[in-house]
């Protein structure tokens, strides 16, 4: 039990409530999309699988694929390259040079390819800046749309990142103040009054979900605001003070691979041999390969590894690109272990929950879902307690619109993705149109119906039906069927199809009459209970 004066408890309660009221709906949008984005790689694999399961995205022959592609690329883009597996374990390769845009911000320009690792066939080739190449990505478009909503709400940088950073800070405030104001923390972990007034039961559900979720909410809020502010504010600010604004110099110093300039042309070493060597050195698998100065004597190949068994960080190995000689192993940042480097390495696994594969991702998904539930029930409790005032009744309708309209809009974007991917080269505008179209319809319903229970029923029912139909739509638009997917070992396709059908049926099941639900309780009844 945390002892506070009455005055401080009141202040913290006010901070807890008002921070949620001011930013709760946007926070819910970021939490919900983040919860789904935990499975971004699986969503990409599900929406754009290759015809068979690719167990090893860096098979023998990777060297030939990258080398052949490099030969087809203008040498001005050989300054840097990286390759890693993307949707369906396609090998994504990007040769590029660094430049600054009109506003002086660093960006990359070059040529990217998606390669089938089984045959070496180039499935897609795109040229331009990193943003142009991302915008015309078909295979990863659906997962990137969801990730973009989570990262910056699709608002141009740095404003989107600053906004999500502020939302992260609001979540941090809610988590800390929630921890302090719940005086009987241990008891509240297990208190759920099943027989009692509606408001009390709703409060219990909110508190029990929030209390169990507190450590996780704190971790997500902290790491999330770090990710947003780090790139939008932290790197430019520290670069301004220490390196006179040179962000590339800051990143170069942090990464710790000092450039030893030698532009003498030199053939590249065998990448297959380097990949075999990293596998022999570690029990982890490679995840990302970066190559500086392709085809030069000073070329460096850096191989980032996945998490080791039972560890939250993976090693990084550096090789000479010209000779293939092993140079050194290093942490993600710096050349030797350090406090800053270790903390940095912990941020990604703690935020993405990907350190133990699908198991940890499922736990992160469940905890994220609980966080979304807490943010919405908190707002509903706030508005129900003040339901005699029109402004709070309006906020209750707005909450219903966002709470149930956002999932519907996300599913609508997926419904647009599958038919459109065969026709349009740039899918993001099409998904945006479907997303905002569904959101607009939901807003009209919320405005016209006024009764939160009816708004919820219609939106939740529509979401349920759309989710149940999504696997069918995927299949009708040329996607692989279940029998073929089973034979090809594409378990992700079947698993996500079943998850969407299960989620849709759960939405429809939630529509059953429940007289005690907070959202269905008339304000007059709640007032009577309060009295």
């Amino acid at each position: 039990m945390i002892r506070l004066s009455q005055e401080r408890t009141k202040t913290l309660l006010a901070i807890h409530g008002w921070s949620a009221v001011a930013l709760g709906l946007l926070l819910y949008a970021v939490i919900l999309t983040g919860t789904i984005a935990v499975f971004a790689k699986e969503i990409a694999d599900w929406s754009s699988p290759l015809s068979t399961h690719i167990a090893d995205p860096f098979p023998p022959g990777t060297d030939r694929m990258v080398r052949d592609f490099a030969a087809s690329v203008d040498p001005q883009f050989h300054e840097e390259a990286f390759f890693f597996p993307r949707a369906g374990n396609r090998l994504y390769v990007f040769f590029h040079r660094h430049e600054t845009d009109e506003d002086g911000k660093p960006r990359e320009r070059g040529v990217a390819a998606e390669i089938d690792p089984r045959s070496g066939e180039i499935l897609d080739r795109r040229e331009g800046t990193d943003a142009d190449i991302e915008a015309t990505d078909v295979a990863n478009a659906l997962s990137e749309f969801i990730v973009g909503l989570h990262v910056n709400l699709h608002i141009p940088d740095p404003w989107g990142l600053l906004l999500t950073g502020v939302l992260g800070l609001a979540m941090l405030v809610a988590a800390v103040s929630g921890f302090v104001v719940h005086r009987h923390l241990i008891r509240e972990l297990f208190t759920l009054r099943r027989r009692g007034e509606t408001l009390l039961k709703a409060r219990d559900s909110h508190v029990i979900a929030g209390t169990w979720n507190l450590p996780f909410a704190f971790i997500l809020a902290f790491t999330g605001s770090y990710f947003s502010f780090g790139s939008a504010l932290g790197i430019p600010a520290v670069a301004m003070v220490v390196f006179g604004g040179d962000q590339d110099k800051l990143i170069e110093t942090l990464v710790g691979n000092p450039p030893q300039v030698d532009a003498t042309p030199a053939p590249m070493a065998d990448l297959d041999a380097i990949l075999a060597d990293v596998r022999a050195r570690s029990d982890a698998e490679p995840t990302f390969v970066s190559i500086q100065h392709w085809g030069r004597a000073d070329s460096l190949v850096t191989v980032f590894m996945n998490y080791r068994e039972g560890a939250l960080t993976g090693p990084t190995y550096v090789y000479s690109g010209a000779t293939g000689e092993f140079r050194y192993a290093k942490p993600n940042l710096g050349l030797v272990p350090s406090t800053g480097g270790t903390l940095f390495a912990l941020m990604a696994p703690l935020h993405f929950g990907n350190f133990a594969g699908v198991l940890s991702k499922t736990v992160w998904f469940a905890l994220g879902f609980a966080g979304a539930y807490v943010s919405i029930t908190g707002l509903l409790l706030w508005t129900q307690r003040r339901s005699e005032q029109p402004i709070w009744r309006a906020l209750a309708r707005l909450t219903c619109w966002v709470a149930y309209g956002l999932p519907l809009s996300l599913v609508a974007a997926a419904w647009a993705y599958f038919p459109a991917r065969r026709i349009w080269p740039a899918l993001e505008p099409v998904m945006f149109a479907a997303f905002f179209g569904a959101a607009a319809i939901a807003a009209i319903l919320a405005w016209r119906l006024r009764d939160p229970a009816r708004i919820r029923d219609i939106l939740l029912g529509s979401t349920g039906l759309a989710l149940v139909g999504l696997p069918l739509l995927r299949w009708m638009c040329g996607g692989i069927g279940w029998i073929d997917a089973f034979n090809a070992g594409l378990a992700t396709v079947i698993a996500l199809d079943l998850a969407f059908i299960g989620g849709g049926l759960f939405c429809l099941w939630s529509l059953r009459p429940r007289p005690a639900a907070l959202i269905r309780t008339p304000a007059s009844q709640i007032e009577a209970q309060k009295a």
Partner: protein
Amino acid sequence: MTSASPADTSSRHSLWSRVVLAGPVVFAVACLVMAGSALWLPAGPAQIDNLVLPILLFPAIWAALFFCACLARRLTRAWIFIAGIGLLHAALIAQHLLHSAP
């Protein structure tokens, strides 16, 4: 027509002063602390701690200053403390930039 009592007016001013301190002032000071502490934090064995830690710990810096601004019993002291930290780091940054200018 009723006019607000002096106590009400003082309380409202105090509330606004706290809101300004906990909102834009704390955010600006947290940014100054993040940028300025890169100049005085030890670099550590990898020579990067002074660059990485301020960026990593920005949410913690902000949260500490925010709760200090919200919960301080004496608002004037909170203003002096937070503004002092901000000015100190602003001075450090200014001195560094002036000395490193060509």
